């Protein structure tokens, strides 16, 4: 089922991706062809098959409750687009 431009715009909003007006038709057409490919899966009856979410079906390994990390703020914030007083700065958050 082909996507509408509105659906593409909704996905772009959900994924926080700016897609320009003039790129929307091309994007939609390319997504449609990808969906045509992946929709082939639906032809297979998988009733009773357990999903496999991981190649190694093992149990989680746990870490001990011990503090191992030290302060590396200066190194981490050296690559930050904008920081001040140890804080990462972002456009005003409104709740």
């Amino acid at each position: 089922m082909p996507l509408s431009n509105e659906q593409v715009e909704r996905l772009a909003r959900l994924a926080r991706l700016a897609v320009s007006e003039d790129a929307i038709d091309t994007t939609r057409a390319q997504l449609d062809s990808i969906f045509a490919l992946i929709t082939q899966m639906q032809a297979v009856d998988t009733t009773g098959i357990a999903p496999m979410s991981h190649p190694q079906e093992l149990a989680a390994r746990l870490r001990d409750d011990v503090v191992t990390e030290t302060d590396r703020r200066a190194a981490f914030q050296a690559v930050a687009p904008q920081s001040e007083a140890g804080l990462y700065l972002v456009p005003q958050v409104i709740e």
Partner: protein
Amino acid sequence: MSRSDWEVVIGLEIHAQLNTAAKIFSGASTAFGAAPNVQASAVDCALPGVLPVLNRGAVERAIKLGLALGAHIAPKSVFARKNYFYPDLPKGYQISQFELPVVQGGAITIHVGEGDAAYEKSVRLTRAHLEEDAGKSLHEDFHGMSGIDLNRAGTPLLEIVSEPDMRSAAEAVAYARALHALVRWIDICDGNMQEGSFRCDANVSVRKKGATEFGTRREIKNLNSFRFLQQAIEYEVGWQIETIEDGGKVVQATVLFDPETGETRMMRSKEDAHDYRYFPDPDLLPLVIEPEWIERVKATMPELPTAMQARFERDLGLPAYDAATLTAARETADYFAATVATAGDNNAKLCANWVMGELAARLHKAGLEIDAAPVSPAQLGSLVTRIADGTVSNAIARKVFEALWNGEGTSADEIIEKQGLKQVTDSGAIEAMIDAVLAANQKSVDEFRAGKEKAFNALVGQVMKASRGKANPAQVSEMLRRKLGA
């Protein structure tokens, strides 16, 4: 229509921060109050390429809560990603549990109201799941921008979800209090609400009495005190009823409570229809909890409040009210138990009276918590022993308690000895005092003989006064009656 035609339906989601040393998926410290971002490790900052590894301590605490609630502890649970964008959520998703939570079901007993209106109720739990906390957005103005502190990001949380079993703000508060006491009792959360260690979201709806379908609910977010919880629900209930009665409709929404105005208002920021795109986190394998692990945790669990309450009633003969009051908080129960350990089981009721009476009043006056009481359980226990064996009267005991409180001595016996407070039981000495009182109070003697029982009490009082409180009142009373030939 009036308020009484409506039924209120409340379910709570409580986020309890677990008191682990390190974060749930990283080795950074969880200590509160550090300078911004110094406790945000590479994993907490979500640097490219970093990976989460689950903290065993967080899982252990979840198991403890499951055991305390009589819940099912899932042998296999799964961590999922809850995807949404927010500046305090560094990965763009929160690692949480969705389809298979670690704790399933369970129940907790709550005590609502006081006096004759008091009642008990069991509230069912839906689930409790492990997840990571987000960082904090600081809204002070940085040139029109917000500051992000990720120290809290990755702090382990248990989100404890109740069934919609509560029917009033009072029940919701009683439930929150009971859970708050329990998580502190089993020592999985410090319960500090000011620091955000225990936060409540309330799902509130109203429906006509007798209706079988639930009304549309609104979720009040981030209530960080029991008072706000009460106020927010009461305001919200009033608002919903008014809205419907005015012909309006309640629309599902997330709202915030403003303590300044006492009102709830819609949140503005999350304008998107929520589509969290949950899926199992491929970086984490399923959490498997073997029965042996649960047994090991069980062995380390303290006696639970309900069990302790029953034991106090059964073995110590305490009234239900006393047993419930003393087990409302772990610290109180511990104090009481230690007091009884010194004073002996036979004196348990006397210990209860002192812990709930004099001690509680004195702590309240001083603004102290019981674990900071200047009088130790051993000191109080020995004092209770001296009351029970007749060494001091209750009135004198209060003096001794005050002296202990003020640090005038290290033990009850020392203070009794030093201040000469030992009860006088020498009948010769008492008789002498009685004779003196009778001689000086002929008027009272006459009134008593004329049938006035009050006059007798006045005479007892005079003798006690003469003994400076140290005579045994029962002994005085008995000897006085004999003297007066009554």
